């Protein structure tokens, strides 16, 4: 079981991670950043994340840290 930590100060809301996660665990959230863009949130209630790091590898802003 893994988890990711998203650095909201780095994230620019490009949503590449939401389309990359094979389990669909990263979703657009209702919170906005200072530019008014909807941020992303990681929600893994069932413990499905396997720390494959695909989200982090495709994040253009290095906003995601992955733990296992």
């Amino acid at each position, binding site marked *: 079981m*893994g*988890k990711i930590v998203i650095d909201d*100060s*780095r994230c*620019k*809301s*490009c*949503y*590449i991670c939401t*389309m*990359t996660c094979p389990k669909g665990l990263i979703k657009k959230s209702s919170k906005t950043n200072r530019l008014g863009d909807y941020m992303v949130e990681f929600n893994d209630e069932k413990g499905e994340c396997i*720390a494959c*790091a*695909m989200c*982090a*590898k*495709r*994040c*253009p*802003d*290095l906003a*995601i*840290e*992955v*733990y*296992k």
Partner: protein
Amino acid sequence: MQQVFSIPKSMKKDFKYTFCPGCDHGIAIRLVAEVIDELGIREDIISSTSVGCSVFLYDFLDIDCVEAPHGRALASATGVKRARPDKFVFTYSGDGDFASIGLAESMHTALRGECISSICINNTTYGMTGGQLGPTTLLGQKTTTSPTGRNVDYYGYPIKIAEHIALCDGTAYSARVALDTIPHINQAKQAIKKAFQVQLDGLGFGFVEILSSCPTNWHMTPEDAHKRVREEMIPVFPLGVFKEVSKDGN
């Protein structure tokens, strides 16, 4: 819990990318930083940077850099390498810098077989200046200076940089990679590592062309921009290794 993915050590502390959302420069710079970490050459690097979006490399990497005039990154790099042959020298530039204004410098650096590594980001447009037609702009692509699309009669054909560099006798490694999917990102890292390794082995010029997206100037979402790389760019600019010289001279 153990951290399995983190920011490379060669990147500056508390940096924040200033690129547009979804820009592939961020991934390309991360791959360069990871290769620098793995080869353990950070203290020996002098980088020569270009003009364009790629110039911000020195804001994010904790390495020594010299700034070159537009297109002359490899000319400056040649001077640095000849003055300090013990240092590791690489350039990081865009297609407009490398293959338009700096084509003579780039080509002749490869022909001289300078032991320099070079990375060129090909996004088929001039990103920083507002999306003008560049040397790699695809046929039919609309830009601010080709509003009806690039046509052959008026603008000619796009340049295939990696193939041209591979034809130069001084080139030790020339490859084209993309950043649109995870397997392509992994291949890109291997290619950057090889282009760096040929310099360490003293074999000659190492070159990697990276197909990248520019969502802002293409007027697309980041995901659509990656789709365009896959469906429109890769058929025109095929991925692969076009030249590789090994240590035994083959």
